[in-house]
């Protein structure tokens, strides 16, 4: 429907919408995050839900203690290799549609602990991540911004066609490999179906002051 006509109608008190808009509006307006935290980012996540920042304004106030009732996983904190299988398993236990916010430097890449012997270099090695929030830890405003970004992302999703989201495509997986404890590292160290090392021309790094080349 034409946008101009729609706004004209709404001014006259007639609401016109499409099933897709209604569906996306319903999903984005009541995101239920999974109630768990891994490190200091969780403190900021808790602060975001309390009176001062009040994440409930965006429909995400119901933190569920069970993955079966949650549709948003906020990975808030350092993922140790010992914890990683449990995080992936929790994600697998969430019903579709489900989304992941990778909160803070640790959840993105391992952060300040990146070279630690027991630190996973980012949760996106095992599960697909929708929104990344940098920061150490990110402020509650950043988490609210991430939530709004996720809502915009959900709003823009098509229900049909090639670009439809994963949960509407029967061929796409909704569960991902849970790593097992190996004798030297997690097995597998990353899920190749989810994550590939971005191409970095490391040979040029020494010539480039930023080291990223």
């Amino acid at each position, binding site marked *: 429907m034409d946008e101009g006509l729609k706004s004209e109608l709404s001014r006259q008190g007639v609401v016109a919408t499409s099933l897709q808009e209604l569906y996306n509006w319903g999903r984005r307006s009541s995101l239920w995050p999974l109630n768990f935290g891994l490190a200091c980012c969780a403190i900021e996540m808790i602060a975001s839900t309390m009176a001062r920042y009040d994440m409930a304004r965006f429909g995400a106030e119901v933190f569920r203690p069970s993955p079966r009732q949650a549709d948003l996983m906020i990975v808030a904190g350092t993922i140790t290799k*010992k914890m990683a299988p449990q995080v992936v398993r929790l994600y697998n236990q969430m019903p579709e549609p489900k989304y992941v916010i990778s909160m803070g430097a640790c959840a993105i890449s391992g952060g300040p602990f990146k*070279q630690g012997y027991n630190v996973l*270099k980012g949760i996106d090695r095992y599960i697909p991540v929708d929104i990344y929030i940098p920061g150490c830890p990110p402020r509650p405003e950043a988490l609210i911004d991430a939530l709004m970004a996720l809502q915009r992302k959900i709003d823009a999703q098509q229900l049909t066609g090639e670009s439809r989201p994963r949960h509407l495509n029967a061929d796409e997986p909704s569960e991902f490999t849970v790593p097992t404890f190996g004798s030297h*590292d997690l097995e597998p*160290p990353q899920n190749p179906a989810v994550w590939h090392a971005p191409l970095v021309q490391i040979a040029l*790094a020494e010539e480039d002051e930023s080291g990223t080349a």
Partner: protein
Amino acid sequence: MLRSYKLHWRKKMNLEPLRAELEEIIPGSVMEIITNPSPSAQHSLLINPEHGLAVATYLRDAPDLRFDYCSNVTGIDWPAPETPGKVGLKEMEEDIEQDGDEDDCAKAGYLEVVYHLYSMEKKHGPVILRMRTCDRGKRVHLPSFTPIWRSADFQEREIFDLFGVIFDGHPDLRRILMWDEFKDHPMRRDYVEPDDYEYEPTAHDEVLKKTMQHHSKHQ
């Protein structure tokens, strides 16, 4: 009874009388006093692991010592010195090399465990105990002090996990930080980490070297 070595909070401690007393009660128990040249001057007693339990029990139970609180247990890995007398080695390490010459056990490097003891009752401390293993391979057994001080339980498990010291007499010696299937001891200096340097967007120094190695191997 006030003895000369009576220790007070924050006061520099004198270990010589304590060493003499321990040697008198348990002959051969104290190997040496390791001095700490830093301003904190926390000197420590290197004790013989064979008499470790007897020393610990005595320190806890002697009525004028009463070290009833073990505040900290930590581990140190001392690998074999590559070239003795190498320029740039710290004074501390040179000291230990010399010790190693006296003791045939320690030539191949060793693991060390350090206990910090205080007395809540007598308000004195710390007394710092050290014990050394024979080598870093198979002879890594030390007596556990968990039966003496319960607070050593988790910390000895951590040292077992990260350094590989086996504490004989520990009631529940399993890994505490790493998973049970893990084989290595990550805090050892010769620990080989998994080669997961496939993506280091801001690599520099040591990380850059490892990343270059990773990419040269996988191309």
